[in-house]
Every structure is written in C-alpha cells, then in structure tokens.
C-alpha cells in the first residue's frame, strides 16, 4: 500500500523520537555505569580513580542496604495488596446499577490527580499529626492515646498514603475490565443458582486476571521509585528508607557518586526484571 516515497518519509518522521529516546536512555545509563566503577566524591577530592567492583560490594554490604530493600518490599507489597483487593471490590460495586454513578466515579478517581507532595503533606499534617491531626482527635474521642503515626508506624503510614493515591488507578482499570465481562454468562450462572462467591471465583476473577496483572506491573514500576511521599514525610527516617531514597541520599546528600551509582545500577536491574513481564503482556496485545 505504501509507496517508496512515503516509506522514507515515514522513517524521517520516526527518527527524532527514536534518536531522542535512545540518547535519553543510553547517555545517562553509560555515565551511571562509568561512575559506579569509580571512587568519585565531588566535594572531597572528585575523581579518585577506578574502584573496580568496590562500590557494588560496599553498597550491598552497608548496614543500610537490607533494611532499605525490606522497606521497599513492604511498601510495594502492602500497597499492591490494598489497591488490588479494594480495587476489585470497588470496581464490582461501581459496576452495579445506581444513582449518580458518574459523580461517584469522579469522587473515587480524584486522589490520583493530587500531586504527591500535596497528598503526603495533607496526610502527614491534617490526619497523622499526633497533636492536631484528625486521627489524634478520633483516638482521644475514644479515650485512646494518639499514635505518633510517622515515627511509630512509619511504613504503615506511608503505605496508607500511597494506597490512597493508587487505589483510583487500580479501581479504574479493574472497572474497565469488569465492564467488558460477558453479562449473559454471569446471568446464566445466576439462573443455575451458583452462589455469589462461586460466581466471583470461577467467572469474574479469571476474567480479571490480565487486568490485575497489568495493575500490579504498572504500579510496581511506579512504586519502586516513590520519592516525594518519603521526602516530605519522614525524610527516610524511622525505617522508611527505601532503595530509591537510599540511593538519593548517597548521591545528593553524602555526595558519594560512585556508591550511589552502583546502587542505581541495582535499581535499574530490579526495575527491568519487572519490566520484562510487563512488556510480554503488552506485546501480546499489540497485534490483537
């Protein structure tokens, strides 16, 4: 269908995007790899020569490393669990006939559009503040001692904030998937007297499998790199230092670029493992 002329024109039109993205990917990546093998302290002598795999070994053996991996996994895992479970329930609820469905959907989706710095600060102060926060008022009302959320339950607090931000996304995707469910099949099974839980388990859940996988993969990629939510709440204190935050501290706060870059390479490898799975699913859908 396409002529030779339009083929070469098409290539010209594609070129800028490809070249830019290639540069955006390769230049910083190669620099990060380069720095990760260097002893490089910008404020304390600069480039102090090659370091071999020292940075990689030091990053993994530092006392902060495993706790940061643990914090990352707890935050990502906790948020995924909450958003997927409640996302499915909320999606099912919103799919039912009701009055004002459009308005409810707008209310539910709203948190996704709140910038991370705002949601973190609003939760930190107006809800979780141990003296004046709403939770403190509520606790006192029931005669309980207010909880110092961000220091005594830092991971739980951050999971709460991040889940609030990501629940709308999960709900919207899962709702879209539920809407494409074959109504007749469900009705038939209802006629046959299949109980609600069985219908959910054998018909709804398998249908949602793909959407759930996509929610998990996309959220994981974003959650692995959450930054603002920690930056403005705990600043990485109280056991809430994630891998991303640890690397940020190494690079910008303690200005140990070699060490931070080695950490960055670990983070890139981790993200790529998740990405490979996502690519497979998206790629399969491309020709359908």
């Amino acid at each position: 269908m396409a002529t030779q002329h339009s083929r070469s024109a098409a290539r010209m039109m594609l070129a800028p995007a490809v070249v830019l993205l290639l540069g955006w990917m390769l230049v910083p990546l190669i620099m990060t790899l380069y720095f990760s093998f260097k002893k490089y302290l910008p404020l304390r002598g600069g480039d102090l020569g090659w370091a071999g795999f020292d940075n990689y070994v030091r990053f993994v053996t530092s006392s902060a490393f495993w706790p940061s991996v643990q914090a990352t996994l707890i935050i990502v895992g906790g948020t995924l669990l909450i958003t997927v479970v409640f996302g499915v329930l909320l999606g099912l609820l919103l799919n039912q006939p009701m009055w004002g469905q459009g308005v409810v959907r707008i209310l539910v989706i709203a948190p996704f559009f709140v910038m991370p710095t705002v949601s973190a600060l609003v939760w930190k102060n107006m809800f979780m503040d141990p003296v004046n926060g709403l939770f403190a008022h509520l606790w006192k009302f029931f005669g309980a001692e207010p909880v110092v959320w961000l220091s005594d339950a830092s991971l739980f607090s951050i999971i709460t904030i991040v889940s609030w931000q990501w629940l709308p996304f999960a709900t919207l995707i899962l709702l879209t998937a539920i809407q494409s469910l074959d109504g007749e099949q469900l009705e038939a099974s209802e006629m046959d007297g299949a109980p609600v839980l069985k219908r959910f388990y054998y018909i709804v859940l398998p249908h949602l499998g793909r959407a759930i996988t996509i929610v998990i993969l996309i959220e994981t990629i974003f959650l692995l790199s959450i930054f603002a939510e920690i930056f403005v709440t705990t600043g990485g204190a109280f056991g809430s230092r994630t891998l991303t935050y640890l690397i940020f501290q190494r690079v910008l706060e303690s200005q140990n670029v070699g060490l931070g870059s080695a950490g960055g390479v670990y983070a890139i490898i981790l993200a790529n493992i998740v990405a490979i799975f996502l690519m497979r699913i998206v790629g399969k859908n491309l020709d359908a």
Partner: protein
Amino acid sequence: MARAVTQQRKIINTTAAWAVGLLIFFPILWTILTSFKTEATAIADPPVFLAFDWTLENYGVVLERSNYARFLWNSIIIAGGSTILGLIIAVPAAWSMAFVPSRKTKDILLWMLSTKMLPAVGVLYPIYLIFIKMGLLDTRAGLIIVLMLMNLPIIVWMLYTYFKEIPGEILEAGRMDGAGLKDEILFILTPMAIPGIASTMLLNFILAWNEAFWTLNLTAAKAAPLTAFIASYSSPEGLFFAKLSAASTMAIAPILILGWFSQKQLVSGLTFGAVK
C-alpha cells in the same frame, strides 16, 4: 426477577457506593474546607465540619508571602512546554508507525515503552551533572526537556492507539484523489485525530504537573514549580494547617478539574492500550 428487589438493590448499591466515594474523597474535601477556616478553627477539637466563619484570609496570606504566581507560572510553562514539545516529536512518529508500519514497528514501540521503566534515581547524578555542565540546572528549559523525554513513550503510545483506529481506506481514497503527504496529514488525519490528540495532551499535562522527582531535585528557586512550592511547607511552623490547605487547594484545583475530564483516557494511556 421482581422489580421491587432490583429497586431495593439499587438503593443499597447507591448508598454503599456513595459512602465509599465520599470516604475516598474526604481528604481532599477536608483540605478544601480547612482552607476557608481560621488557624484556630482548623485544629479545633472536636473538628468543625461546616459551621464555621468562612474566610479567605489564608489565600491572601499564602499569595502574599510566597511568590505563588511564579510557582504557578513555572508549573504551567513546564507542564505545558513539555507536553507541546512532546506532541511535536510524537505526532509524526506515531503517524508513521500507525500508517506505514514495518516489520520493526512493534519492536520500536516496545523499546520506547521500556525506556519508561528506567528508574529515575538510577540516572540522577548523570542528569544532574549534564544539567550543571550545560547550565540547565534550575531552569524551566531543562525541566521541559527532561519531563518531555520522560513522557514521550506515553505520548507516542497513546497517539499510536488513536491513529490505529482511523480507517486506512480513508487515506487511500485521499491518495487516489491525488492528496500529497502534506495534505493527507493536514486535511484528512488531523481533523480525525484531534480528539485523540486533545486527550493525550490533557493526560500528559497532568503527569508533568504532578511529577515530583525531577522537579524537586533539579530546581532551587528560579524554576521551581508547584510541587516544590508545596514541599516548602514540609517543616511545620506553628499554626499552619489552614495556610497549608489553602496552598494545597491552589496547587491541585486546576489539575483536579482537568483530570476529571480525562479519566477515560487515563485507562488507555496508562495501560498502553492493554486494557480496553
């Protein structure tokens, strides 16, 4: 099934859904309400919900003491600039992949998506260094470029999905009538693609507006957008809930409204078309 049962179920559904919806929306609602309170009312125990003396004082204070207008302007320029620049680069690319596909098209698309997976923190220092060397640190131009590159894969993907839905026969008919490449794009494709381009624009504007890693790390005073403006409230200073709320409301209101318009596009945009 009896009509009465359906009606009853509808009432239960409505009640449950509204309750959950309001619960999820509550933090935003509370922030907006608090922004109209005095500082003393803002921390009152028990909390006051609606029966307080509404005041605009906090907005005045926030506007006066921090240069809100400049932060807002930076946000608009950075989000708008990166979106427009991204579209200029992405429209031709998506057009060519959708209408003149080759064997490599699928691989290119997937590869583009894969660049989105690169964790920002992994390349923080190189970007930082490049910015210093090129004098881009704390400039709007620098952020426009970074955010554009960050969102380019999403823009290309969304546009590709939209362009794919335009039937190829229309193009062929145009070619028969002797329409050149330029006419084809200008007079046939563009009008049909405008809704898709508009929603792509909207979603990318929102993503750029809310971006909070590069905007926090690559700006200081001059080019800082609203994300940084809000972050400056992270260390508490006496009574400040009402002012924090006013500042927050001003930062999220425009994007919240835009976001509600683009919620449908969010699904196709953020799942790269994998959920329809």
